[in-house]
């Protein structure tokens, strides 16, 4: 292969040496002339990748970081180019962004708003980052997005699934590639109908915080539209580790489906507990009892182990998409190939969204011919693209949300290895998961004006 002489270490070293060469924090001296924060002067441009490195989501953050590194490598023309080769826009030539070599700095969000903002601030103020990306929780994404808005840099959200990120808390400087709770619910509904029928009674357990609420609201609305009834919605404390007291009453409630609106550790524990209680072996109203987890990631599936088998959920992307669903999802294999070669295992959906966001940002800069956040925003507005693994995608101008197909997955009964835990059940097309900008679940916010800072 063309890059086989470039070892991983060599790549890091070259990148880093160039990083050390990054001269002055160019931001402030340049700001006065160019009219936006951290305008790159020299021959380099710095991106900031803000991911959880400590705390429960550290492994997810590590995977995001791998994707960012890979994206930077590809932008700088190293490696096999990954999805640059399949991306519908051909502005990126592998010579950095607009001829400037791409550098990156990293930070630790700790999955706490305060720490995430501090770390983003340091990348903006100290390292001169012009774009911030990453994160794996909605609270953090909203907090960092708000910060980037006032600092005048672009925020390319990583894994954030709450409706609010591009709903009531949307910002002109923030962009989200990942799907959201509404889309999950809309994508799941037809599959649930097909798998479990129209006459079902659902019992919701919902993490008692904003993401949980929006997820629950969305899925309740879409399942009720199918004709399902909602038996109960019980809020569980975020700090809970043992969900037995919430799960125990479920079987006797008359419900025959349990919907777990939980994420991360909450989801792993509540699902493990539910399976322990034997929910999946029971028959209620003459039907098999079923469990649905509207959103789960590969890492959460790993944490839940065998308990994930047969559980239906939704994902933004899966590494088997192109093989199983054809070349509508081209780019997938290119990305999996180059990620797999470098790290030895297939990428997660968090990695894919972070990789895509980096490429999308670089491409928008190249098309706009400027690093100015307002120019980038214009370039991304209503931008239609393809070849990044999700099929044809639209970056909607009205709320900076990407619209694309949503993958409905189910835990495999007999996974071959720890990276192959889910099977693709269905891909719900874009039309079915789209909504209007002023949809009530997304109302209350305003993009406002783009802020170039300085």
């Amino acid at each position, binding site marked *: 292969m063309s890059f086989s002489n470039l070892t991983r270490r060599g790549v890091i070293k070259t990148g880093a040496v160039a990083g050390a060469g990054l001269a002055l924090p160019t931001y402030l001296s340049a700001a006065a002339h160019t009219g936006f924060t951290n305008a790159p002067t020299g021959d380099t441009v710095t991106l900031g990748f803000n991911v959880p490195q400590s705390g429960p989501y550290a492994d997810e953050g590590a995977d995001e970081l791998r994707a960012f590194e890979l994206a930077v490598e590809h932008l700088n023309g190293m490696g096999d180019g990954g999805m640059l080769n399949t991306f519908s826009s051909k502005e990126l030539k592998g010579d950095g962004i607009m001829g400037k070599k791409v550098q990156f700095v990293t930070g630790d969000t700790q999955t706490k708003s305060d720490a995430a903002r501090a770390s983003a601030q340091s990348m903006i103020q100290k390292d001169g980052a012009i774009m911030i990306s990453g994160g794996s929780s909605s609270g953090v994404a909203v907090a960092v997005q708000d910060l980037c808005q006032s600092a005048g840099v672009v925020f390319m959200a990583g894994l954030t699934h709450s409706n609010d990120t591009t709903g009531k808390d949307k910002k002109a400087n923030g962009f989200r590639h990942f799907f959201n709770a509404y889309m999950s619910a809309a994508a799941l509904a037809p599959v649930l109908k097909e798998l479990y029928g129209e006459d079902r009674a659902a019992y919701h357990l919902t993490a008692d915080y904003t993401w949980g609420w929006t997820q629950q609201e969305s899925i309740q609305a879409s399942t009720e539209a199918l004709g399902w009834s909602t038996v109960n919605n019980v809020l569980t404390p975020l700090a809970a*580790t043992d969900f037995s007291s919430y799960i125990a009453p479920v079987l006797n409630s008359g419900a025959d489906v349990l919907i777990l609106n939980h994420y991360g550790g909450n989801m792993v524990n509540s699902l493990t507990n539910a399976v322990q209680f034997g929910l999946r072996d029971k028959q209620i109203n003459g039907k098999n009892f079923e469990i649905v987890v509207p959103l789960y990631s590969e890492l959460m599936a790993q*944490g839940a182990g*065998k308990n994930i088998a047969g559980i239906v959920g939704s994902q933004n992307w899966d590494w088997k998409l192109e093989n199983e669903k054809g070349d509508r999802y081209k780019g997938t294999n290119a990305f999996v190939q180059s990620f*797999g070669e470098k790290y030895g295992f297939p990428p997660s959906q968090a990695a894919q969204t972070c990789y895509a966001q980096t490429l999308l940002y670089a491409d928008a800069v190249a098309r706009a011919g400027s690093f100015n956040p307002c120019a980038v925003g214009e370039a991304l507005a209503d931008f239609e693209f393809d070849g990044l693994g999700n099929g044809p995608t639209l970056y909607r101008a009205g709320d900076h949300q990407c619209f694309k197909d949503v993958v409905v997955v189910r835990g495999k009964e007999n996974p071959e290895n720890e990276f192959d835990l889910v099977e693709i059940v269905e891909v719900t097309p874009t039309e079915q998961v789209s909504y209007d900008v002023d949809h009530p679940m997304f109302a209350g916010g305003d993009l406002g004006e783009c802020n170039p800072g300085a």
Partner: protein
Amino acid sequence: MDAILLQLLNGLDKGSAYALIALGLTLIFGTLGVVNFAHGAIFMIGAFCAVTLSKLFNMSHKATEPTGTDFLGNPKFDDILYVVDWFGEDAGAWMVDWAVPLAILFAVPIMLAVGFIMERGLIKHFYKRPHADQILVTFGLAIVLQEVIKYFYGANPIPTPAPEAFRGSFDFGVLLGFDPNAVIYPYWRLIYFAFSALIIGGVFAFLQFTTFGMVVRAGMADRETVGLLGINIDKRFTIMFGIAAAVAGLAGVMYAPINSPNYHMGMDFLVLSFVVVVVGGMGSLPGAVLAGFLLGILESFASMNEIKNILPGIDQIIIYLVAIIILLTRPRGLMGRKGVMED
């Protein structure tokens, strides 16, 4: 009625974990006067003993002949477990399945060693230091321990299932004449409850019927006398610390199938177990057990929808609320002796 019975059962189970952790904590506090913030980390290490044994049993080598291709198109080799190689198909599979119970044997010496090393290496220098220093140094130790575990095992929870025979749940309701599925309870949790009852009984019997135990109890009644008890007091302290570590560690081993262990599970339990100790009464062993079960049961009841509808958010704060009420009305805790840490 069935709902209440159900929550009672759940509370017993949660209470078992609280009680076991608090038991060791109060043992250390009552005898040695040390506030040990690393006790949650010991519980976590116990759980990771189960993870480690399960990983050891699952260690494998590649088959010589490829059976297919992997996701990148390279040839793929099947994994063959060493235990299958060494002990044969059936015995190997049984060992993998029974990793968690087997981990008890594996964990006891490890946890005792962890306790001994902690006491000899660190804690013994802190007997005379202020509580604030003890808290800080053991908190630092807790961070170090969990970061070391994170370094080797990652941050993601690691599923560690119970043996096949104990999966699924038992329908109590049918026995008692309720509808099917009204009162069900997972087998493993029943085992957890029985196991913790056994451990608690064992600790009490040890303290009640051995000379060593009598010395310890005397020490808890009047800490100064422990110092006057003669030659080998240092050794006794160390052994006591080892026992406390083993109790928390075993609680962790058996807890692994209930919730997939992760590196910060100890911190999650730490604050709660302190509340349990204080509610039960500092240095009171029966108090720790009673308070553990009481708080577990109250927590379960607070999570019932009937109660949450009247008092929204009560399940978020019930433990702390109970702690506040107990401390204000009965500062020595439920079963604490008068005067311990009261001034």
